[in-house]
């Protein structure tokens, strides 16, 4: 950027401003490192005491037990992963189908309203979802399966699905909107019916955007605390069925941090590190895909 008559004064002013702003930027960018460092130092006592191995090999999570303390993270990890996958499995068909409906079957006004409603719903706090889940979803499960406690993997999956549904619906809608008109025109010119156009042309073309939305939903769901802590049942175990209670990592941290002893706390920090790793990997994969598709696809 060339400026013809920059006086040396304004140049030094700019340097100072650049310096201050640069400092702010480095603080912002470095914050995640600070967080990581604190997590690691919080987890350090456990690592030092050689518990890290047990963290991954112990079968149960009962760190406070005096009789048989076990520090296995696997049950909670399983809980987190399973409830997340269930949520996506429930939210994806519904979100995608409604996006397809609004893009190809509904009048444009309806599509606008659908999008506005989804945009509003994305702002609903997780704790409200969790509360409603406790009030409505859990008793409904008990009604259908009277022997089960109600609070379960299924309840968590349903509540989480509700949470990420607007996200998936919106990203799917945007992805379908971004299908080049030329392709839809080509499909029409060939006499392809609407269903074939959607299934053979539009959905494959929108696949990238839809997958991106799913990954975002996955990342959001696995990091969720409030929506699951109230409805999952809070028993750290690998579920044998949908109706078994579970306890994701996030719930464990939220529930136990308040009363954990020092060594117990360190393990909770380890759990937090595992969680952060998962989320960071997913987001990293997302932005890698995005930058690959931005540079990879050229024109026809």
């Amino acid at each position, binding site marked *: 950027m060339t400026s013809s008559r920059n006086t040396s004064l304004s140049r030094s002013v700019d340097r100072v401003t650049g310096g201050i702003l640069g400092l702010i930027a480095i603080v912002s960018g470095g914050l995640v490192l600070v967080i990581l460092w604190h997590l690691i130092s919080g987890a350090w006592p456990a690592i030092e005491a050689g518990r890290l191995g047990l963290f991954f090999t112990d079968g149960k999570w009962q760190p406070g037990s005096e009789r048989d303390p076990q520090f296995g993270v696997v049950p909670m990890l399983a809980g987190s992963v399973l409830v997340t996958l269930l949520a996506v499995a429930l939210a994806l068909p519904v979100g995608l189908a409604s996006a397809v409906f609004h893009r190809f079957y509904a009048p444009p006004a309806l599509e606008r309203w659908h999008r506005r409603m989804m945009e509003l719903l994305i702002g609903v706090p997780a704790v409200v979802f969790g509360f409603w889940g406790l009030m409505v979803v859990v008793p409904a499960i008990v009604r259908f399966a009277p022997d089960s406690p109600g609070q379960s993997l299924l309840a968590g999956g349903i509540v989480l699905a509700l949470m990420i549904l607007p996200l998936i619906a919106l990203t799917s809608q945007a992805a379908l909107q971004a299908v080049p008109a030329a392709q839809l025109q080509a499909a029409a010119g*060939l006499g392809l019916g609407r269903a074939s156009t959607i299934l053979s042309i539009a959905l*494959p073309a929108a696949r990238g955007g839809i997958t991106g939305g799913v990954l975002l939903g996955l990342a959001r769901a696995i990091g969720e605390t409030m929506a699951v802590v109230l409805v999952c049942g809070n028993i750290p175990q690998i579920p044998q069925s949908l109706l078994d209670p579970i306890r994701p990592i996030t719930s464990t941290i939220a529930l136990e941090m308040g009363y954990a002893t020092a060594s117990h706390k360190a393990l909770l920090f380890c759990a937090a590190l595992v969680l952060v790793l998962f989320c960071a990997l997913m987001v990293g994969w997302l932005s890698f895909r995005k930058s690959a598709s931005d540079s990879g696809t050229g024109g026809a």
Partner: protein
Amino acid sequence: MTSPDTSRAGETAPCGPPGCCGSSNLCIADLSVHYRDLTAVRGVTLDIPEGEITALVGPSGCGKTSFLHSLNRLTDLIPGCRVTGSIHLCDGTEITHPKADVLELRRRVGIVFQRPNPFPQSIRRNFEIPLKEHGWSQRDIPDRIEQVLREVGLWNEVSDRLHQNATSLSGGQQQRLCIARALALDPEVVLFDEPCSALDPIASGVVEDLIHSLKGKLTVVIVTHHLAQARRIADHAAVFWMKDGAGALVEHGPADRVFSAPADPDAALYLSGARG
């Protein structure tokens, strides 16, 4: 020529309105295309002869593309677009009838667009999707693909990479692919909307030769800005011009006559290069 069931509702006479004689494939009567608040083209009456190449020429904005798109009801896709008047295929099928089977119509009247638009899937899928949709059985499809690719001269170039993405082909190859894709459905008419304008001169020449070779096999309607191209390949010509704020047909007839001695003064000015 295959004979799909064409006794559609809306049939008036065996060959459409009076004046549409037996050698025409498409009879257009008083066709107008309106968008929400403007009229793109008004009152076009034209017979498109079967098996020959008819060129639609005229300056930009005279509604040639709108007119072309109404011939296979692509205008239905545009919200707020209204088409008045009638179009008949020579077996009596009324294209403009509200209850016409639009999907079958578009198989019979194919279209190739200005910019090549192959599906970003494998070359094979580009053919399988429309062929399956219109009822070809999986058994017959590979032969069909080879047949049309040979027809457009692409078989030798792509026969060993049918699984590759169609967008990996060059612009000229993609356009020939789109032509083959339209031909695969065994159409009676193929519409071309300035098919060479997005191509380099060499590819343009190849596509032009290909279109010329279709003469006699099916009816071609081609919109083009290149008068030289029209002179080279057209058997019939129709000249469009702006009249009263909308496109209109000002001259039509055998290509030699229209290009050498046009009757309409505006057409004469356009064709001599003085205006437009």
